[in-house]
């Protein structure tokens, strides 16, 4: 992809995925990777940072004799997600008005 992703956009995507349902590290990474071209090692630092900011919490669940650490979004995480979503909509409209409108709407 030619567009570089900012870290806030990545934060927003992770929060968005978790707002729908809890997920463990591997599945979360795969879900985000479906929509974004990122290296897989980018996700762990993001998760850790969001967790430190208390937007996410974790809990452990055993699965086939080993441990799965699930990430769950917190109330302040949802707040942050909504805030980022609002900013994104404004940003998207501005870019669209140039990229799309600039060519078609003379």
């Amino acid at each position, binding site marked *: 992809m030619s567009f570089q992703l900012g870290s806030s956009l990545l934060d927003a995507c992770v929060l968005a995925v978790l707002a729908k349902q809890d997920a463990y590290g*591997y599945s979360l990474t795969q879900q985000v990777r479906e929509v974004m071209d990122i*290296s897989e090692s980018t996700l*762990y*630092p993001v998760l*850790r*940072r969001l967790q*430190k*900011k208390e937007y996410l919490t974790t809990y452990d669940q055993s699965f086939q004799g*080993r441990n799965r*650490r699930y990430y769950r979004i917190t109330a302040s995480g949802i707040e942050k997600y909504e805030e980022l979503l609002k900013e994104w909509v404004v940003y998207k409209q501005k870019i669209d008005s140039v990229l799309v409108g600039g060519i078609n709407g003379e």
Partner: protein
Amino acid sequence: MVSKDEYLKKLQSKIKKLPNEEINEAIDFYHEYFAEAGEENTDSVIARLGSPSFVASQILADYAVKDLDTNTSTTKKSFSAIWFIILAILASPIALPLLIIIISLVFTLIIVCGASILTFFVFIVGLPVSGAFSIIAGFAVIVQHWQTSIFFIGIGLVAVGMGMLLFSPFANFSKMATSSLVKLLKKLFDKLTYRRKEGI
């Protein structure tokens, strides 16, 4: 091909400067990650994650900034953040000549930042100290010529007062200077590793 355990061991050695809790979290995460992908996919997981150095450099760089963003950030913490950024750059797989340029650039930035903070520090510590001397001198001549005495004591009090007033803006300035330095370095680091990823 490297085994999963070797990979994790290498990763651990690259991030050993972090607090224990951070090391354990990261290793647990990647341990689980390999397990989820399945034993037979170890090679492809390693290929997708990148080298242990690359994974480590991302953890270190993000830790540096995260550590800084907490409200209790102090100048001391900022310096440790700078240290982590340097470690991150060292851990990342960049060509050596480029690495040397980057490191000298980073050190130059740190020195410029440090020198300006030091200058202010000397100035601000110097003010109350010279003020105190002036006050002492003032008292020393109080019996000979009280007007001179008042003059010196007054100058001394002004200097002490100015030093005290300037102290908290100075503390803020040094905090700001170091934290923006760290953010700048992180940006530089992101650019570098990003370009590398693209430029394969």
